[in-house]
């Protein structure tokens, strides 16, 4: 049996450096946008007292979900002993770490008082799922770093499986926690539901694999044909199809459940039918672009395992995924709180009873995009210094 060796990314040509420079520029611009927001206050953003979490949070949650899912490939190999994926385990771990760092950076930089990060790290209210998430995120980073370490250092390969199991369990708890951030909110009709946690877990599988395929396609130009063999592509294709279907399932159950409950008719009608923004994003973004079109591509006999087709499908999935998170995070806030059931016309200076308006501002969008660039920059950078790329397995 061939033993996989790993190497550092060597083929660093013009394309690689230009992509890295682009990411670095985006990060700098994003940091500038952050300074602008922090110095002038959130008045310069589109967020307000009704829509308190905006584009930065959409991107942050998107990245955090993708991070936990990106570890999936590694988990399949270490936990479920599928050797075909073993060679991608290190890259998968790195991607998970990088995406999480990118997501957390966006989240922290959007705080009203990011200078109080030390307070957030030292004072904990353990009844808060948010506080638990902070522990889960940091623990995830430590565990994945440890998982990567035991794979790299000699004499510790036998620890790979136990570390892999711990990492897998941890990431399931982490994503459950991320979903519960919304699921535990009794205040809003769209959130107060246990299905948020499994919905986010299913979504994490999908986003994680899509990101992994994208990174493999774009990073390793010189060796990708050897790296992404037909066999591997077919396996990834099968997984993607399953994950898309599972996400569609949980989304359907969430909405159908709400449609059955008369109390929630208002928010469902708003999100699925009435809203020019959220309905379009849901049907056009998540369903058509993010689920149906990729399914059509992936189930096509000739296109299915083609690397370019899969890359295109992955991009569509991720854009649809952004739309999905946007509808959940912002659509859920836009619908007014039901404080006075039984009364029809409600008005106040706060906008009670009215749909809240939200127009993302440029600094917010820049900050969100910076998260993605940060994740990709870290991935690219670490690949050049640590041996994470598998040497193509030669047939013997």
């Amino acid at each position, binding site marked *: 049996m061939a033993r996989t060796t790993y190497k550092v990314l060597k083929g660093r040509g013009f394309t690689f450096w230009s992509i890295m420079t682009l990411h670095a520029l985006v990060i700098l611009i994003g940091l500038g946008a952050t300074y602008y927001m922090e110095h002038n206050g959130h008045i310069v953003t589109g967020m307000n007292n009704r829509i308190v979490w905006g584009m930065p949070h959409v991107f942050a949650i998107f990245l955090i979900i993708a991070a936990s899912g990106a570890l999936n490939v590694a988990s399949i190999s270490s936990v479920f002993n599928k050797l075909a994926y073993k060679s991608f385990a290190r890259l998968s771990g790195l991607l998970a770490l990088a995406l999480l760092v990118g997501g957390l950076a966006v989240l922290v930089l959007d705080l009203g008082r990011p200078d109080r990060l030390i307070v957030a790290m030292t*004072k904990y209210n353990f009844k808060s799922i948010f506080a638990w998430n902070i522990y889960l995120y940091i623990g995830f980073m430590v565990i994945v770093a440890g998982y990567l370490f035991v794979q790299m250092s000699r004499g510790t390969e036998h620890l790979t499986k136990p570390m892999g199991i711990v990492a897998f369990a941890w990431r399931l708890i982490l994503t459950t926690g991320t979903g519960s951030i919304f699921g535990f909110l009794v205040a809003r009709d769209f959130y107060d539901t246990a299905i948020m946690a499994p919905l986010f877990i299913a979504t994490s599988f999908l986003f994680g694999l899509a990101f992994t395929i994208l990174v493999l396609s774009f990073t390793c130009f010189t060796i990708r044909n050897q790296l992404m063999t037909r066999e591997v592509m077919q396996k990834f294709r099968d997984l993607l199809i399953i994950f898309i279907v599972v996400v569609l399932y949980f989304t359907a159950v969430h909405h159908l459940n709400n449609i059955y409950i008369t109390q929630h008719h208002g928010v469902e009608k708003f999100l699925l039918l009435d809203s020019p923004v959220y309905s379009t994003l849901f049907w056009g973004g998540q369903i058509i672009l993010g689920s149906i079109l990729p399914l059509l591509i992936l189930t096509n006999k000739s296109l299915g395992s083609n690397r370019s087709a899969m890359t295109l499908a992955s991009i569509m999935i991720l854009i649809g995924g952004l739309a999905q998170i946007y509808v959940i995070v912002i659509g859920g806030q836009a619908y007014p709180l039901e404080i006075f059931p039984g009364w029809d016309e409600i008005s106040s200076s706060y906008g009670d009873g009215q749909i809240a308006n939200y127009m993302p501002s440029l600094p917010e969008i820049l900050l969100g995009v910076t998260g993605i660039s940060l994740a990709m920059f870290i991935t690219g950078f670490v690949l050049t210094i640590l041996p994470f790329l598998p040497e193509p397995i030669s047939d013997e």
Partner: protein
Amino acid sequence: MSDFIKGSGDGCGKEGGCGCSSGSAVNSHTDHRETDMPQTRRGFMKAATALAMITIAPGITLFATGGPAKARPLDEAASPKIRWGMLIDASKCDDGCTKCVSACSKENGWKDNGRPDTDAQWIRAVTLKNRKTGATATLPLMCQHCEEPPCVDVCPTGASFKRADGIVLVNKHTCIGCRYCMMACPYGARSFIHEPLEDQKDHAPRGKGTVESCTLCVHRIDEGRLPACVETCNAEAGGALMFGDLNDPNSEISKRIATYASIELRSGLQLNTGVRYQNI
């Protein structure tokens, strides 16, 4: 006592007679009205009324305002034996009246900058209409000071907390401005400060990047005074707001709640709010 009798014996001294309300005090010359009624009887009536009013005035104050809070010694901590609450009678809240909102904003230093989306609103007037029955109502809405506050549950640093006497507050020293409490509040009671502030009231510190909400005028309560909204509504408007100790069965508010039906907003959430409403 003699002060009152002397004062009531004289008129205002303005030419043109009785309709004066100028408020000038004791005058030495007599008014033409004096000849219509014997001075002693008029004086006696005024004095008797004064005496009666002085006797029942504190009672009137108590009844109308729900009883002022007792001032607590400076070094004494808030007591868990007390639970501060408010009772709002929506039928006494007038359409279009926003006196409680103005009082709160003047007292605590938040302003209407003409941008209602981002301006802080500790209290707001809500108008309701039922299309089927035609009924309408107005009422003020502020932090409900729940016994089981969702905002306290979700705050990652514990900045959102409930004081021993039931007032839900934000400890701005610890608030990191994550706005999760604003997501969690079922009443939309919290505001985030979106811009740098200057010249805050020294009894109500507030700053950019932190979250705030109605404090039940905790600085006034600790001094034994009433919240600004309650005081203003009683003095200048319909007297819809009553404040007091919900744990004291003899307080005016407890007696009123025991006698007349009142509800919590979103009572299905079982948060046991400290603010209750009647007649909506």
